[in-house]
């Protein structure tokens, strides 16, 4: 019952606000959705006390698709992993709902916004409580749609529409992999229920399947196909291009969907499937390499962007990379731990950025900010807390989780663990640098904004600052409270995360050399120090460096030219092919030699057929009918006789 209320109250809110928004009015819609979110969040906190460390059970809801041995039902799976995820999703979502009351106050369609936001929360909860791959897929695509709707919320802006479509389609590329993964799972296990897959995974280890013309290791292929889905949703290198553009959506959306919850779904999927991944070392190697590469790649791009939200977006992309390579090296617990801490501090950073944008009359370019520290003190302080947590300042949430990931990478036996460690460490320096850059450019130094705008700068109302404070408390405390997740024996998870008999990474990570333990902190200090040097001490330095390294800077500023490459490789060819098939294939070949050719020959026949063209349709139809009857009659008599 608790979980039904937890999961379905956001849906109820979405339906009420969506269908009766006009009758409820703005205030009514806010009250209904936020009220139901408070209910849901309260349930999620109760769930933490009741179900952490308890064995898994499921709450049946409804039958879904049942054909032969393909038996899939709607059900909620409650175990330690889903309890943690439900808490993160519901809790963060609740405060973002409340924040949005202030942030979206002047918007023309408030009920629609809250309906989408609650719908998203419901879909995300369905995703994390899924009991089988198909319900996961439902939540997976459901959050994708909610994200699409929210990115395109301001649908009159062409850039928002383009970003929304891009997000959906790039995610569909990932879902394509996921769908095939579902099919392969059913092929191998004859079931797509988690219980069956996890119980029987070991029995299928080393089994080969003949698919796609090759004989591949079954579990590796399943793990890789699922990972393609995870890459799409979690914006990993190659399928990351949608995430920065997604910043076209309202800022609370960026905080909830594109930082705290939806984009972490991929990490959740890998952790959920740890029983399978543990038996597929080749797949884990891929996860590690992709994760580490993304962590580094996104951090480099983050160095050069000027849009405050885009910097944070690339930072998210980079942090997701950390979570993935944590899973890749076998430390799923560290990945989920970072997922949780990240949800707090990244949501905080985004909401803080929203507060800045709000104060600056919708300005997002950091080149036209500066000197805001005194004017919006609460936001300033909260943003620093978020930044310190992100860069891993000792004592903050990020410190615990990011250090754990890097230590695990060092200690692991994964073939690419050092690749992950060094790239992760480099990314840590870059993270500290761009985070410092963001803070210094935004809040410190002289104001570079229009004086007119500066006059109007004001602190946000309490409805916005209170959620900031709550999340800041989370960003400070989540590390202390969640440390238990890294329990060396893995007992904390009560079987929700499975590690193989040879996987001792959670043990080994506590016994790494002192220098390795110290490295992340050194990296952080280096990055922050450099950013202080660049943006406070010697403000002309960035320009000089950029000029000196012009090609590199341009390359980074243009995000490694991924968008241009994809446009060239996929978008244009698809349109060109479409035109060729249409005008060349359909019109040029099929019609020309098919019906039109026949018609021409027929028309050449005589005047009677021409009359057809002049509109005697009736005659024609009845001629057809009579012909039919005659034909049938004739043939029947042939049979009879």
């Amino acid at each position, binding site marked *: 019952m608790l979980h039904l209320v937890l999961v379905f109250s956001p849906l109820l809110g979405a339906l009420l606000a969506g269908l009766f928004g006009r009758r409820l009015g703005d205030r009514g819609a806010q009250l209904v959705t936020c009220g139901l979110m408070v209910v849901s969040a309260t349930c999620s906190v109760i769930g933490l006390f009741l179900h952490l460390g308890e064995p898994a059970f499921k709450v049946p809801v*409804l*039958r*879904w*698709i*049942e*054909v*032969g*041995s393909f038996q899939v039902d709607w059900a909620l799976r409650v175990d330690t992993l889903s309890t943690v995820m439900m808490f993160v999703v519901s809790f963060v979502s609740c405060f973002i709902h409340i924040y949005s009351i202030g942030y979206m106050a002047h918007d023309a369609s408030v009920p629609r916004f809250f309906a989408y936001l609650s719908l998203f929360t419901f879909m995300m909860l369905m995703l994390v409580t899924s009991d089988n791959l*198909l319900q996961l*897929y*439902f939540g997976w*695509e*459901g959050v994708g*749609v909610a994200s699409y709707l929210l990115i*395109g919320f301001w*649908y*009159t802006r*062409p850039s928002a*529409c383009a970003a929304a*479509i891009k997000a*959906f*389609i790039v995610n569909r*590329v990932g*879902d394509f992999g996921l769908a*095939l993964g*579902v*099919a*392969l799972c*059913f092929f191998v296990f004859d079931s797509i229920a988690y219980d069956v897959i996890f119980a029987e995974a070991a029995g299928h280890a080393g089994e080969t399947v*003949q*698919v*796609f*013309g090759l004989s591949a290791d079954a579990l590796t292929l399943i793990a890789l196909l699922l990972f393609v889905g995870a890459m799409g949703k979690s914006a990993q290198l190659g399928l990351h291009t949608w995430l920065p553009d997604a910043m076209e959506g309202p800022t609370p959306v960026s905080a909830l969907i594109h930082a705290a919850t939806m984009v972490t779904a991929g990490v959740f999927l890998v952790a959920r499937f740890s029983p399978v991944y543990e038996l597929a070392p080749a797949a884990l190697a891929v996860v590690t390499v992709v994760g580490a590469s993304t962590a580094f790649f996104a951090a480099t791009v983050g160095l050069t962007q000027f849009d405050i939200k885009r910097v944070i977006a690339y930072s998210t992309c980079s942090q997701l990379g950390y979570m993935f390579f944590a899973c890749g090296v076998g430390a799923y617990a560290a990945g989920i731990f970072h997922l949780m801490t990240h949800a707090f501090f990244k949501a905080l950073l985004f909401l803080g950025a929203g507060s800045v944008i709000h104060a600056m009359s919708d300005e997002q370019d950091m080149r036209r900010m500066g000197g805001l520290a005194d004017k919006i003190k609460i936001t300033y302080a909260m943003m620093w807390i978020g930044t310190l947590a992100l860069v891993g300042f000792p004592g903050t949430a990020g410190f615990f989780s990011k250090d754990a990931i890097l230590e695990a990478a060092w200690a692991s036996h994964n073939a690419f663990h050092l690749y992950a460690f060094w790239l992760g460490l480099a990314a840590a320096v870059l993270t500290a640098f761009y985070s410092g850059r963001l803070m210094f450019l935004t809040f410190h130094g002289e104001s570079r904004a229009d004086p007119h705008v500066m006059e109007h700068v004001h602190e946000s109302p309490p409805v916005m600052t209170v959620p900031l404070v709550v999340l800041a408390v989370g960003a400070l405390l989540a590390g202390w409270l969640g440390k238990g997740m890294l329990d060396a024996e893995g007992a904390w998870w009560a079987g929700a995360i499975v590690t193989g008999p040879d996987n001792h990474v959670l043990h080994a990570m506590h016994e790494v050399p002192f220098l390795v333990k110290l490295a992340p902190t050194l990296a952080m200090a280096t990055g922050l120090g450099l950013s202080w040097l660049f943006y406070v001490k010697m403000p002309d330095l960035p320009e000089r460096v950029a000029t000196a390294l012009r090609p590199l800077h341009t390359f980074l500023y243009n995000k490694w030219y991924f968008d241009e490459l994809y446009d060239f490789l996929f978008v244009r060819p*698809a349109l060109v092919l*479409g*035109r060729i*098939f*249409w005008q060349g*294939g*359909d019109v040029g070949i099929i019609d020309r030699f*098919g*019906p*039109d050719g*026949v*018609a021409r020959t027929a028309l050449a026949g005589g005047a009677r057929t021409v009359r*057809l063209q002049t509109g005697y*349709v009736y005659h*024609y*139809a009845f001629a*057809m*009918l009579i012909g*039919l009857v005659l*034909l*049938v009659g004739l*043939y*029947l*008599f*042939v*049979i*009879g006789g």
Partner: protein
Amino acid sequence: MSDWPLLSLTTFLPLVGAAFILFIRGEAAIVAQNARAVALWTALATFALSLMIWANFDPAQGGYQLVEQAAWLEPLGIRYHMGVDGISLWLVLLSTLLTVLVVVGSWYSVTERVKEYMITFLIMDTLMVGTFCALDIVLFYVFFEGILIPMYLIIGIWGGPRRIYSAFKFFLYTLAGSVLFLVAIVVMAREAGTTSIPELTRHDFPVAMQTWLWLALFASFAVKVPMWPFHTWLPDAHVEAPTAGSVLLAGVLLKLGGYGFLRFSLPMLPEASAYFAPMVFALSIVAIVYTSLVALVQTDMKKLIAYSSVAHMGIVTIGCFTANSLGLTGAIVQMLSHGLVSAALFMVVGVVYDRIHSREIAAYGGLAERMPIYATIFMLFMLASVGLPGTSGFVGEILVIVGIFGITPESPAIPAAGSWVALFAATGMILGAAYMLWLYRRVIFGVLEKSALAGIKDLRPNEILAFAPLVLLVLLMGIYPSLFTDPMAASIDRVLAEIGAVGPGRLALQMP
């Protein structure tokens, strides 16, 4: 109730209504009004009767139910033989429901020759229901081909400017198929000595003969589906057809091909079906990829949706020839879903066409501002069309993909393993999202700046009424598809037994 001839009543009630309308006399406006009313009541009564069929249907049995037999052309052994199973049951319901909706939907938009219009649609209703109930192959053929005539009239009389070309093209294609089908019927009847569908199914046709028969049937059904490369009549027919015509064309007529494969090709000619299955898969894959790409560059809304239909029906043909319960169930669910969704999408286009008289995508933009209800309904059907889980579009697609995935090449003569077919079928998910989302963006999103759109009104009550059942059914079929698949299960098992190889989810198609 069960001893009533329910199927015949359902089939022929619309004809009675049509006859009533024929005798309406008087002032033009009054005639039109009465014709509408009679048509609506008749269609509603027919739909109610078809619900009675459902109520009397025993889902546990796989055979034909509510069977009616009567002497017809006795010297030839041809009987009036009707019956439904779990497959045709839903297609009957789909037909009667859509007929109601098109009558409601064209309440205000059709003002010319209303009397004839309504008569034509009621005749359509009779023929559609008859086709799905017929258990004698000659009876089936009469209904099956008879449908062409009202559809031909609908396009030719109430169609757009190029209606003659389109009607002609439509006719040419289908005629080519029909003639071969007729020949095949004669050959089959002579070989088996019966025209009863259940008996023909039990007859073992020699393998050499099966090949030719199969190709003859294929010619007819492939045009109906339509499969690539026999699809080019569809975009033209849709573009010129009035909205109601498009709705029935996409909603029901395209299903005749898939139904034909399930009722005739597969159970009667199983060896030939196995032999030709790889070709069907190949054509279906081409259909999915090719027509999705073509849909991407369309500038006409109706053409875009027409091309998307070809891609969606590709999933159906793949599902049919998997010859396992997942694939068959998926194919039927996909047919029903496509029947609802494409019908709804054509109605969606019809709504703005009635107001602005343009099908060009470029003529629209920013409708969300003035038409929020319309935008919401369009959004739902767009998402159903791209196969979003929770809508009907998803269930069929995933069942077919899972169903085909496990089919392995037992024989080297079958080059395409199921996983490759699944892979290409799944690319339709990506391309489908691309063209549908882009269509939606250009029509609904953006700033409303075109002067012609300045006064555009949101949905009228009769339009909402026509959309409402479709909205409910699309969601119901997505969230609780068991309601629809449970009654199918026994019949699908029967069909699989007729095909002769039932396997738990992973049947290998074998060479004859």
